[in-house]
């Protein structure tokens, strides 16, 4: 893989920008986050923000800075969950939380109005994917799938999980190898397989996909292809169509390409990566006619890192939010001015056309000082219709409800 992406980068560099850079590239690949960076940006100081892996004391969690629309309230629901990312709900109400660098999976339970946080798995390689079905928790780390049966009855002693790694046979690549995972309405375990680079030549039937399996890892099916890296998707509550967020590539400029929202009407259709994002033809790769590909349903902003998304189906929020999509935007690094760090709502009309993207949870981006206070990664609706938002940077979960 490394060699192929290298050769490809080489061809582009030779064609585009002279031999010196190409010779440099020939000796070793650039770090994954800097692949596809044009020579004029070689000295850019932009780099991914450092993660925080320690507990943020509750009084330092920036709840007071959070803003929600009139009629809503937001509170700190749980804290002391370093690296909290993707969330899934157990049948008895346990919220399971995946992480990346810190390698843990947490279980958060409500005990008499107080939240209790337990670490139920650790020392895993980026266990970002968590999904729940028939009493079992599925944890997906890089190239690893584990199933914890009867988990909600044994949170204090989860025991040895069932190892499903061989059955799923996921690619071992680290870069974009972390998973979002969820069960489809017809019970298929669905996950992303991101591209192992920023932009490169890759096997388009192996990477840049959303795939689904039977829960035992058999019967792999491609749901969508040409999706660079989707770390959030959900099924429309009425039409049951799959909708997914997607992260655009880095180093093409401050304002291109956008992250995107995709509507997947038919399994297996091609959404265009690495060639096109909508009608934007990526200059780093051979030209293709962008009308060959499915067009994104909406643009979510350049470099925003649009990740976790869910349709709202609850009764607590006003009717106008029903079947609309809440989307967490973790926030940019590859842009000179920060953007994102919020939760937005994608508004859909009756035909499923996106009519607008509206802010919903704001306040974590301090624009005046170009700094951020937190990084929302996922949203999850509780049974009472309130909405949880995980904040990876503060290891916290917020709860948004209707003001009484």
């Amino acid at each position, binding site marked *: 893989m*490394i060699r192929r992406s290298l050769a490809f980068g080489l061809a582009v560099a030779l064609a585009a920008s002279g031999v010196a850079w190409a010779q*440099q590239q020939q*000796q*070793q*690949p*650039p*770090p*994954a*986050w800097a692949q596809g960076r044009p020579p004029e940006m*070689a*000295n*850019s*100081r932009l*780099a*991914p*923000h*450092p*993660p925080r*892996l*320690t*507990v943020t004391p509750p009084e330092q969690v920036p709840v007071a800075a959070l803003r929600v629309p009139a009629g809503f309230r937001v509170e700190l629901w749980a804290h002391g969950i*370093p690296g909290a990312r993707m969330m899934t709900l157990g049948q008895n109400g346990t919220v399971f939380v995946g992480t990346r*660098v*810190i*390698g*843990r999976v947490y279980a958060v339970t409500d005990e008499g109005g107080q939240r209790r946080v337990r670490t139920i798995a*650790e*020392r895993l390689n980026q266990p970002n994917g968590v999904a729940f079905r028939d009493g079992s928790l599925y944890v997906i780390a890089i190239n690893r799938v584990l199933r914890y049966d009867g988990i909600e009855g044994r949170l204090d002693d989860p025991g040895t999980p069932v190892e499903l790694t061989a059955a799923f046979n996921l690619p071992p690549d*680290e*870069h974009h190898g972390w998973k979002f995972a969820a069960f489809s309405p017809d019970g298929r375990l669905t996950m992303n397989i991101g591209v192992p680079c920023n932009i490169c030549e890759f096997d388009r039937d192996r990477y840049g996909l959303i795939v689904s399996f039977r829960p035992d890892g058999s019967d792999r099916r491609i749901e969508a292809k040409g999706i660079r890296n989707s770390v959030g998707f959900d099924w429309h509550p009425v039409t049951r169509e799959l909708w997914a967020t997607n992260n655009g590539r880095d180093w093409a400029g401050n304002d291109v390409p956008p992250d995107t929202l995709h509507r997947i009407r038919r399994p297996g259709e091609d959404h265009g990566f690495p060639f096109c994002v909508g009608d934007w033809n990526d200059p780093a790769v051979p030209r293709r006619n962008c009308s060959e590909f499915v067009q994104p349903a909406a643009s979510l902003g350049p470099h925003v890192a649009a990740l976790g998304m869910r349709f709202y189906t609850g009764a607590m929020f006003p009717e106008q939010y029903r079947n609309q999509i809440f989307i967490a935007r973790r926030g940019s690094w590859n842009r000179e001015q920060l953007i994102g760090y919020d939760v937005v709502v994608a508004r859909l009309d009756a035909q499923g056309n996106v009519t607008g993207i509206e802010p919903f949870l704001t306040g974590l981006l301090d624009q005046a000082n170009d700094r951020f206070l937190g990084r929302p990664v996922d949203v999850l609706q509780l049974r009472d219709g309130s909405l949880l938002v995980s904040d990876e940077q503060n290891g916290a979960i917020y709860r948004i409800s209707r003001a009484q």
Partner: protein
Amino acid sequence: MTFPLRSLAAVALAAAAFLCTAAGAGGNDAAQRGAALAEARGCGGCHGERGHSPTPNVPSLAGQPPEAIVLNMILFREGLRDAPPMPDLARDLTDRQIEDLAAFYASLPPGPPEDRGAPDPARMREGALLAERLNCGVCHLPDYRGQNQVPRIAGQREDYLLLSLRGYRDGTRRGTDTNMNAVVYGLSDAQLAALAHYLAQQGER
């Protein structure tokens, strides 16, 4: 392994030195707590009382960005960076204790180890060229003092620099991301040695 007992005076000294350099009041308390903890745990026995390591293959910690120290201590504690004896030494530390230790070492003035040798012109030249070509200064900053999660490498022990560069190249060490593995991918032992030599000679003399 045993470590000599150190006097309380050393701690007081470290704390006093910190009073002069600390930027924030909160950091000050944390650094004082960290100094006491480092003393109690004997960190200085390997890493040097003032964070300038006298021990082969043990890194200097003085003047490291606090984030870099915290993240590596968490990787040790969580069993995600396998580098004896650190995982055992970090096992029972709380987040708060780790942050205190990081504040302490970050507050100490950086500097080379006492046993640093003289620069070798040929390896200095090769190291400088490689560091330039591979953009080490973009992440580690042009004077290699580090920033956030990117460690200080200026004036670090040469043997430790070589050890860690080998670890990244051979895939036996990985940080909170895999950037360093990609940076040194495919370099020869001689190239790594030149880089280590050049960087060990940077910074305060």
